[in-house]
């Protein structure tokens, strides 16, 4: 990831290969090399996305899936969702969750990365092993495990909280229903998602740290800089390109979180819905699918993501240029 960053700042006009030769005969090699990937992505990603765009202006149900022509409804799907207070509620959940989860993921992930960098051989192996397990767990498995942990009958969390003295955590935990209210549902969801997402941050930060020259830290120590100052003055600026990528990816991942929430609450708890779950319930929730509505919601989600990401990248690139 480090080598991609300088590409942005490369002075224009300088090309790695001889400019004269390439002007006469365009080199096909790179395009051939990238073609299979592009074709696969185009078939599996772009085409469905275009379809979603088309379908969001149509009324599509099972009859249309069988081949009947779909009815064009203009912007009706968008009008319906944008005028529905429920849409704004799910949007609020989505955004709030993303803000909290991204912040926590980056903070905890970075701390783990710093810790791994400091630890010696055996302990580092042990910690990174634990971190890898969290990373390797499929989202479905993780969601089921967390549903059990926070469940009512035989749930480990309620049992432990019940064992703790009442003056510390309060009583009545035995039958506490974590998935009854949005706030407690999202607490569990955040723990689950952050637990799975911070290993990637930790490993990326660790990889970055390994490339920071040791002399810089030595010089900082000689100058009497504490760990807090060292991190913000040396580590953070050097690893900035990495953090840029990590923040953007985390935003994308946490905005579209679906699997875990779907398993934890299902469709019977609409008060806890986020945008993805809302789109799913419209499109696939019953035997009468409203694929047009589902597509419209998905398109809105995609647009929001694109805007957020574009703004963020722009800000970061600008900052890099002025310094």
């Amino acid at each position, binding site marked *: 990831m480090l080598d991609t960053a300088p590409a942005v700042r490369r002075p224009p006009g300088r090309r790695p290969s001889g400019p004269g030769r390439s002007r006469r005969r365009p080199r096909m090699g790179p395009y051939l090399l990238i073609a299979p990937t592009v074709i696969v992505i185009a078939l599996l990603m772009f085409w469905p996305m275009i379809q979603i765009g088309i379908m969001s202006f149509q009324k599509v149900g099972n009859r249309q*899936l069988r081949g009947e022509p779909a009815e064009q409804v203009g912007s009706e799907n968008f009008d319906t969702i944008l005028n529905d207070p429920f849409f704004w509620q799910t949007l609020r959940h989505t955004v709030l969750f993303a803000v909290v989860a991204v912040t926590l993921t980056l903070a905890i992930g970075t701390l783990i990365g710093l810790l791994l960098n400091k630890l010696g051989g055996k302990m580092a192996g042990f910690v990174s092993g634990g971190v890898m397990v969290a990373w390797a767990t499929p989202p479905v498995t993780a969601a089921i495990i967390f549903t059990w942990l926070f469940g009512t009958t035989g749930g480990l969390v309620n049992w432990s909280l019940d064992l703790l003295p009442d003056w510390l955590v309060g009583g009545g935990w035995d*039958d506490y229903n974590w998935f009854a209210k949005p706030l407690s549902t999202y607490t569990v969801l955040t723990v689950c998602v952050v637990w799975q997402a911070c290993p990637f941050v930790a490993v990326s930060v660790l990889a970055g740290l390994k490339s920071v020259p040791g002399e810089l830290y030595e010089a900082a120590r000689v100058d009497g800089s504490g760990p807090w100052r060292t991190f913000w003055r040396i580590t953070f600026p050097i690893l900035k390109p990495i953090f840029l990528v990590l923040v953007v990816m985390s935003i994308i991942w946490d905005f579209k979180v679906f699997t875990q929430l779907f398993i934890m609450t299902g469709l019977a708890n609409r008060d806890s819905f986020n945008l993805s779950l809302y789109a799913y319930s419209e499109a696939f929730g019953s035997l009468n699918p409203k694929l047009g509505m589902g597509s419209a919601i998905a398109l809105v989600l995609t647009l929001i993501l694109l805007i957020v990401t574009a703004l963020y990248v722009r800000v970061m690139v600008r900052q890099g240029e002025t310094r």
Partner: protein
Amino acid sequence: MKYTKIAAVSAAIALAATACGGDDKDDAGSTKDPATLKVWMMGEGTPEQTKFLDGVETEFKQKHSGTDVQIKYVPWPQVATTFQKAAAGGEGPDVTEVGNSDVQSHIEQGSLADITDEFKGWADGKTLNKTALENDGANGKTYAVPWYGGVRGIWYRTDWFQELNIQQPKSWADLVAAAKKIQDAKKVPGIGAPTDQTNALLSFIWGNGGEVATKDGGKWAGKLDQPQAVEAVNFYAGLVTKEKVAPEKYIGKNELEGPQRDFPLGKLGMYIDGSWALKEMKKISEKNADKWAAFPIPSKAGGNAPVMAGGSDVAVWKDSKAKAAAFDYITVLNNAKNAKSWADISGFSSMRSDVTFSDPKLAVFTEIAGNTKFPPLSAGWAEFEQAKKVLPNSLKAIMQGKAADSELKKANEQANTLLNP
């Protein structure tokens, strides 16, 4: 690079294969034996079920020796998406099991073959439950055949009832009193009242003379804002909020996500579930299994409340190229002998009037099945109940402190729009 290319090529081949997959079935017609007959069964499938279906296949082959029957199990949570794929890709079954609440949606979408003539020629058809059969038709045509049904009762502990001197509850007041007694003496919640269990809630609404919606001159009109329905919903929610005989931990859950686990473990006094729950509960704990029994859900003033007739039907898929063989399979699957053994294996009651359970513990469910009702027979019910889950979400809001009147008014507006798609 090499691998990417291979991946690209195989992806392209896979796409091409699915794209034309719908067309390369042989058009030999329905007179000859088809080479294969694809049968979709709903649910995870158990070894007993597979053994049972093997037996059905053997019997089916006596008439169609050249046909290979392929069974595919579709887990219930994936049913909607699987049928969507079948409709879109043309890769559907020949015979399929269909949840009875989904039959009307399928008919409306044109996914099921018209089997009116075949059904008329089938002698056993006369033994089938009339109410269930009504759900399988539209505009005077038949599209599916009732297979098995499930009705729910209230499971309880005979030893606790005896010890605490509780009689079988005959009214809502009795039910609350019984739950209170158990809760006080046994220190476990008296009864389970999950929010995501529309079938249970419906029994209370119907048991109070209420309705979800009634058909008024070709249009469904919601009745959830009527006093009978409001009172029933208030009573059900009140089990948690007012009487406090049902725990809050089942809010937002269905009967499988808690009650079905807690009852066999002796951590719950009573809960509402079907005959098929018996074998599921035995998987959790056999300890007190001989003391479990069920009684019918009471209505408000006394007597049995009508229960929702859950269950499954079998149908021939519209795109099937072997309609005749497909219907023959249905007649074998649902002949008297196979219906009996399926009832005993699955714990579901047969929809044939001449078949009963062998296990005496389940006999009460045959009695309960005498008083069944259907939710509104509208294609919109699937969206009302599955996608939007209107009643479960209203019930949840009411249990968490919202006023029943305004919540049910909103639910009723939803019913008015969704049930008239």
